[in-house]
Structure formats: structure tokens, C-alpha cells
């Protein structure tokens, strides 16, 4: 199987911030809904963040940033710091993967990630009585005390690989592998594709002048692109360097 580089382009002009991606992701990946969790201790592998242009009244504008693992390619911060290889960049897919069963829960990777895209299991996962029947087969439930994050729904990749193998093929059918958030987005704002393939529409889109990556200057080469026509939204890519940024924080 020729190495792929799976990535995304998220069209922010299409994101209405409905949150379907978050719910679909949690459901696909057996993320528990813990009532005791808060905005700071929750588990939302893809988290839609609201940002505003800081203006008041009629000039006020808002946009929504779905934040998830950016699958950094260069000097991947979390991979570099994990003491026991619980994180690695998968050679075949370019997915930065997290292996909760290997993780010892030191949370060093969380401090290393500039996007806060990593989440810690502060509680034992639990569901109301009977609800464990609604767990998605193919995705193992993580235990308390480990870090997890977006693995690009690789359980779906497994199914695709198995299907291909059964049909005697080496390459998977791209249509069989679509992450839950991409599938869920009602406005089709999340575009998923193989950046290693120059003809992939996502590759082309990622090169458009309207596309950008968050904190690109850190040099971690994220494979998750954002796209917007709005200049003020694109300005959210890098920290504001004019000494009045306090108001900016949506």
C-alpha cells in the first residue's frame, strides 16, 4: 500500500458551528458522556471553538474553528516527547496516532501540543445502565488515566483495509474510509483527502490562497488546513502581534 498522507481542509465559511461533528465523533469513538465533565476536563476529540472579530454591534462577526489533532508532520511535538512510544506518526497514512493502552498518563504530550487537541481521561468511562449496548464495535473503550485524541477514525480505515483484503485488493477504496466528522458535517465544510496525491481535490484546495494552517510558524507542518474568504478569520492563524490582543480573544 503506497504511503498516504491523510489530511483535511475545513472551509470555515461553511461551518455554522452546529456541533454535529463533535457528537458524531464521540459516538463513533465511544467517547463517554460524563455529566461531571466540564469545558476543561471533557473529552471532545474534535472541539468547535467560537471566535469573534472583537467588534461590537452591527460590525460584530463570528466564525467557528473545529479544532482537532492537526496530525503534524515535522518534529511532531507529541511524538517527540512521549517517553514510551504511545504516540507515533503512522508511516502508511501519516496519521499521528495515540495508543491509550501504551500510555502511562504522564500528560507530557498534552503540554507539548500547541492546539490543545489532546484529552485526558480524568474519570473512568461510564454509561447509564444498558447504554453500553450502544457502544460502537471496533473501537475499544479507553480507561481512566490515559491520554487520547483524534486518530482520524482509524477503525473505519481498518474496516476498509479488511474489505479490500477480502476482495483481494491491496489498496483501499477511498470511499470506504471517511472519518465520522466529515460524514456528519451538514454543510460539507470538512474535506478529507490524501495530501500525497497531487490530484486529490483536497490537495489542490490546501494550496489555495484562502487556505491556511494554525500556528504554521511553529514549523510543525500540520496536515489540517483551514480556509476562509474573510481576512479577519485568516488572521486567526497566528497570534496577534499588536499589543491590544486581549479584546481579540473570542
Amino acid at each position, binding site marked *: 500500500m503506497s504511503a498516504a498522507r491523510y489530511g483535511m481542509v475545513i472551509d470555515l465559511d461553511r461551518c455554522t458551528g452546529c456541533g454535529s461533528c463533535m457528537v458524531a465523533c464521540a459516538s463513533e469513538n465511544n467517547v463517554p458522556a460524563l455529566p461531571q465533565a466540564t469545558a476543561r476536563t471533557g473529552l471532545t476529540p474534535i472541539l468547535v471553538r467560537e471566535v469573534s472579530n472583537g467588534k461590537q454591534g452591527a460590525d460584530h462577526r463570528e466564525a467557528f474553528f473545529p479544532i482537532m489533532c492537526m496530525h503534524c508532520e515535522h518534529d511532531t511535538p507529541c511524538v517527540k516527547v512521549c517517553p*514510551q512510544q504511545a504516540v507515533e506518526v503512522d508511516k502508511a497514512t501519516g496519521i499521528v496516532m495515540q495508543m491509550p493502552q501504551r500510555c*502511562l498518563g504522564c*500528560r507530557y504530550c498534552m503540554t507539548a501540543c*500547541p492546539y490543545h487537541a489532546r484529552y485526558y481521561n480524568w474519570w473512568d468511562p461510564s454509561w447509564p445502565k444498558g447504554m453500553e449496548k450502544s457502544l460502537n464495535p471496533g473501537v475499544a473503550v479507553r480507561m481512566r488515566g490515559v491520554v487520547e485524541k483524534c486518530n482520524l477514525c482509524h477503525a473505519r480505515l481498518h474496516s476498509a483495509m479488511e474489505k479490500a483484503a477480502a476482495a483481494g485488493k491491496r489498496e483501499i477504496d477511498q470511499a470506504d474510509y471517511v472519518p465520522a466528522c466529515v460524514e456528519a458535517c451538514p454543510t460539507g465544510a470538512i474535506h478529507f483527502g490524501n495530501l500525497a496525491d497531487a490530484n486529490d481535490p483536497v490537495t489542490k484546495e490546501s494550496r489555495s490562497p484562502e487556505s491556511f494552517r494554525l*500556528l504554521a510558524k511553529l514549523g510543525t507542518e500540520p496536515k489540517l488546513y483551514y480556509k476562509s474568504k474573510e481576512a479577519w478569520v485568516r488572521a486567526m492563524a*497566528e497570534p496577534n*502581534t499588536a499589543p491590544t*490582543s486581549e479584546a481579540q480573544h473570542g
Partner: protein
Amino acid sequence: MASSVLTDSRWIARGEERTSLPRFLLWLSPWALLLALGVYAAGLCLYYGLNQTNMDNRFAFGLWIFLDLGVIALGAGAFFTGFLVYILKRAELKPILNTAVVVGFICYSGAVAILMIDVGQPLRAWFTFWHPNTHSMLTEVTFCISCYLLVLSLEYIPILFRNRQLRKIPSFFIFEHQLHKLVPVLAAVGTLLSFFHQGSLGGLYGVLRGRPFAFRTGFLIWPSTFFLFILSAIASGPSFLMLVTATVEKVTGRRLVPQEVFGRLAFISGLLLAIYVAAKSVDTLVWLNVTSPSAGFAPWQYYSHKPFGTPILFAEIVVFGLLPASLLLFRKTAEHRGLLLTAAAMACCGILLNRFVLTVQTLALPTLPFDEFLSYVPSWQEVASFGGVIAYGVIVYSLSYRYLPLFGSKGETTHVSGN
């Protein structure tokens, strides 16, 4: 009278005077209580998980990491004194050698204990040895700290066996005697290990490319904080030793080490601190003007959030760096105990402040443009386990002081006559 019944004189080194057992126990009891509370809190964290703490997804490190970095820096006195005595042959420092070892042992074992609570899955901590990621600073730290803790234990045992009763067991005596010959080797090994993990503890944050406040460029694979940590650790170690010794002298009302030892320690500490401050200043300038801007972060941002304003930077480098450094270097200081200790204390505070800024401020600061500045207040469980470690230290030290010849060249001489 109670003391006649309650006595442990046969365990106390011959010729040494120690307070009565009841008074000693009275002194221990509050610490024992604190330790018990700490153990309880730690138990809660292990049983229910880290939801017992106030850490969260963005503040993934908290009080405990600060504690680890702090005590390990202060514990550096152990290896450094060993290094001075055995490698650089500074015999005049021998009197504080035992204290140094005990203090080091306490700091490191305490740190390791806290780490075991801090990781969510202690039962899997050994994976680091089985599947090590050689690129991770934390792997280096884990290896070195656990090895060095072993070394410290080996250095501690001979002191332990020099107890009046234990000496009586011949095999122990032989063992201790043999082991004692090893001590220089251990000192050398310890030095090497310590240099590395003190450094990699600094590297821990220095390598965080994703946290421009902490990220530093450096030499080969090591970010500048790697070297700054080594420097600051060996600078503060002796100061901390002075503080401990002085405190013990105050509590017991005895002179335990000759004055010149203090003078010597003060000078070493001051000298190293001065070098550290210089290096730190250069590093800060490079970071503010080159490293950080190239990552797209304007330095003023870091200090635009109260309470982490520029004063903290000033305090770290000048008030608790330059000032104590010059005080310690100033010969006259050594003669005034009060002044000397103040300077030593300031030096230690400076190092702690540095560790605090690196651990806490780094996480509090926003990275994404739409992040907020975060605050974090440790839960009682975190504070209690913190206190537990301190209590543990006091208790172990008190016991060691009471039953082992920590100071007193007596231990040495009797040992010589022993064979």
C-alpha cells in the same frame, strides 16, 4: 519518669548527645500527621484517579511537577558535594557529605513517589524501560532519576549501617566497609547521571516547540534550558545544604560543621549562581529577540497577563539571582550567619521561582490566538500530598540525624579504628 522507660540510648552513637525520646517523638508527631494526610490524599488520587486534582486538559501539569523539578534541583547538593569531595578532592567539605547524601536521597525518593501518583497509570510506568522513546527528554529523566536513586540508596546504606546497633552485625559491618570503598565510584556515577537528568529536566520544557514561552534553541539535541538547569541546580544545591545544616544547628543548638565549610559552600554557590545568572540573561535575550519572534510570538504577549508581568522576570534574574549571587561571593557575608542564610534562601527561592515560571506560566499562557489565559489552583489532595513529601523528608532526616553519625567526624574515626 517516662524517659527512663522510654529510652533508645543504645541506638544512639556513643558519645553523641541526643534529646530524650519523648521529646523527639513529640517533635515527630506533627510531621507524622502531615505525612498520614499526604498518604491519604495520594491514596484518593490513586483510587479515584486524577479527577481528585484540579488539573485539566490544558493545565495538564500542576503543583506536583513544580514540586518534582524544585526538589530535584535542591537535591543536587548531594551529587555535587560528592563530586567536589571525591572527584575534585575538596576534603574540607567531607563533614557535610553525609547530610548531602541524606538530603539528596530524600529529595529524589520524594520526587519519584509524587511522580508515581502524578502518572495516571503507575502500573504501566515501567513501559518506559521496555519501550523507551530515546528522543524523549522524559525517558532520559526517568532512566537517570531511577538509576541515581539507586546510587543514592547505595550511598545511604553505609551511613545507615554505621548505626551503633547495626554495626554489631558482622556481615553488615563487612558489607558497609566494602560498600564504603565503592563510594568514590558511586559519586562519579552519580555525578554523570545527575548532570544528565538535571539537564533533561530543563530540556523537558525547552524542547516544547508547541509552547514558544518555554521553547529554546540550543546546542545539538539539547535546548539551552538543559545547561541552565544543570548550572542552576549545582548553584542552589550547596545553598540548600547550608540552609538545612544551619536549621539543624539551630534546632539542636549545636555547632555541627566548621565555619569554613559554610564559607566554602557560600563561595561555590555564589560563583555558580553568578555564572548561571549571566548565562540565563544571555539566553533570555536570545529567546526574546530571536527564538520567540521566529515562532510568530511577540515576547510582550507573555508578560501581558497579570500576575505574570515583567516583574517576575526581573525577580527571577535580579532579585533572586544577581543579588544573592553577589552576596554569597562577598567574603564578609559568610561571617554573618543571618546574612549568609538569607542569601542562601534567596538563591533557593530564585531556582524555585525559575521552575515555577517554566512549569506553570508556560501552561497558563495561550498559544492559539483565540485561547484565554488560564489559571489553576491546586486541590487539597494535591497540596496534601505535597505536604506529605515535605513531612516525609523531615522525618527521615530527623531519624537519620538521631541515629546515624551524619556529622561528627567521630563516625569516621571509629570506622578507621574498626579495622
